[in-house]
């Protein structure tokens, strides 16, 4: 067992908190390598949610009785935890959504509709997930916006040589912090300062980075940052939009309903201030509480330790897969582990990603085949799909070894 790596990061101990990983499939230990799609969650998170449902549940914000007050405190406490975790200057800058996708749609639908007019340009990168493409395309079709694309190098890094030209006159840059296909960590410093210099706001899709490394939105300097709970040990049904207070204050509401108003008459309504303004209806109360518990868990391990563990594991995986599979494998993304997250998209010669995943499943190795909601990037790489393995704090070298072994089996099965 190599479950405790050179830094003393104790995967065996962590795994005990994740009962789902302690299962076998046809006699083999389950190897879960699909955290980039959605992570698993520790017992502590489930306990926090069950505990809320079993002791302190009621609808929030409008109740006077103690049960409702406790529920409200747990919900708002989660907002403070999120704010602290990402270095927001106030919990009021944290809006809970159902997922990162809704958060991006909120930015486009509210900020975008209020600020973009026909002919305006928005800059995206070729690395983007559909969640950061389609909402802009929807508004572009409605408003006749121009969408410009930052190109990508063959190794998955963004090509910023034409950045200033692309940003010239643009109103917004919306870009991923880390690709969910190649693991590329984008050059946020340069992107943010160039965009701001050009007068464009910056939206950062931090779905893949927030779960895996420490984040400070204030230092990052962006205008909006989004991420999802389910990729960071939290439950499904919760996402986060962080926005600068002055933007949130100026933006019109996105969804209308209860909880986001100061007043409603038959003639019209007066919106409340942020974050309430953007949280129409009963929010994902217990999901927020679960996310708060996930953050407590992540902080107890330490984001820097998690990042370092994943860098080492990624370095090991790059070596191991290259050694075992040689020229029959193509690994997408930067070669240098420090320039990427623990996401390995691969192409196996003569074996389609779907078939790779099918055969790996027979080895109880869970990876994801497909376009990973990044079809423009797939088309750029000239592939319909990749097979993607992704790591998190509960993965170790044994998992990488199982991956390598099963990939060899897949190659050999189709080579017969």
């Amino acid at each position, binding site marked *: 067992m190599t479950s405790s790596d050179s830094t003393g990061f104790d995967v065996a101990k962590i795994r005990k908190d994740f009962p789902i990983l302690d299962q076998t499939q046809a006699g083999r230990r389950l190897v879960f390598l699909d955290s980039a799609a959605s992570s698993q969650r520790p017992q502590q998170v489930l306990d926090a949610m069950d505990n809320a449902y079993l002791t302190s549940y009621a609808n929030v914000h409008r109740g006077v009785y103690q049960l409702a*007050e406790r529920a*409200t405190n747990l919900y708002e*406490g989660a907002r*403070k935890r999120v704010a602290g975790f990402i270095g927001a200057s106030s919990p009021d800058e944290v809006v809970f959504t159902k997922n990162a996708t809704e958060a991006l749609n909120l930015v486009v639908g509210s900020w975008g509709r209020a600020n973009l007019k026909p002919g305006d340009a928005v800059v995206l990168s070729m690395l983007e997930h559909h969640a950061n493409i389609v909402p802009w395309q929807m508004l572009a079709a409605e408003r006749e916006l121009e969408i410009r694309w930052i190109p990508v190098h063959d190794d998955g890094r963004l090509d910023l040589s034409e950045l200033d030209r692309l940003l010239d006159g643009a109103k917004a840059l919306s870009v991923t912090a880390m690709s969910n296909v190649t693991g590329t960590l984008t050059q946020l410093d340069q992107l943010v300062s160039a965009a701001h210099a050009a007068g464009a706001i910056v939206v950062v899709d931090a779905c893949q980075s927030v779960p895996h490394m420490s984040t400070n939105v204030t230092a990052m300097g962006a205008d909006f940052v989004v991420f999802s709970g389910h990729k960071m040990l939290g439950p499904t049904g919760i996402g986060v939009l962080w926005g600068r207070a002055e933007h949130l204050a100026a933006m019109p509401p996105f969804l209308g309903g209860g909880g986001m108003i100061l007043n409603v008459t038959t003639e019209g309504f007066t919106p*409340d201030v942020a974050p309430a303004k953007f949280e129409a209806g009963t929010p994902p109360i217990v999901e927020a509480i679960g996310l708060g518990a996930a953050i407590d868990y992540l902080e107890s391990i330490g984001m820097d330790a998690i990042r370092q563990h994943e860098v080492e594991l990624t370095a090991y995986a790059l070596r191991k897969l290259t050694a075992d599979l040689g020229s029959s494998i193509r690994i997408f993304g930067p070669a240098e582990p420090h320039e990427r997250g623990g996401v390995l998209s691969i192409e196996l010669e003569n074996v389609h990603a779907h078939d790779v995943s099918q055969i790996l499943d027979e080895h109880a190795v869970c990876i994801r085949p497909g376009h990973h909601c990044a079809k423009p990037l797939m088309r750029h790489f000239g592939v319909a799909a990749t097979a993607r393995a992704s790591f998190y704090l509960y993965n170790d070298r044994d998992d990488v070894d199982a991956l390598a072994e099963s990939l060899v089996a897949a190659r050999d099965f189709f080579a017969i």
Partner: protein
Amino acid sequence: MSGLEDLYREIILDHYRSPRNKGELPAPPARRTEGFNPLCGDEIVVFVNVDDNDTVTDIKIGGQGCSISQASASMMSAAVKGKTLTEVEELTNSFKTMMSIHETDIGGDDSVTSVESSATRDLPLGDLEALRGVVKFPVRIKCATLGWNTLTQAIDEQRNDTAQ
């Protein structure tokens, strides 16, 4: 009902039952400002006359609300009449400090919100001290501050208008 006695002090119930300065002022010349507590539906309307020396010459309170919001607004109206806008602001700060010390505890985590500190926090509050019991019932703090926030808004608007 021991806890309740802290909340519903006799002087509060008195202001609730016999609110001071209830009513309206012709606006203009008075400034009319509405405040809402979106949580419970309380609505307060503050009518305020400020003279050229920045002094509150008259104030009236309209709207509907619970005992705490009504009593707090009633006490406020009595306390601010005849005061200058600067004095009103100092009083408001003192009152809010009394309330907000506990507001930061909501959520059981005060690492993010910081307690508003103000040189005026020790200003004597008189009758308003009776509202101190509200801090034990955090949900009701919003009731107690509704009238004050509405008055602050009125003063801000007044200042902006004068500045223009």
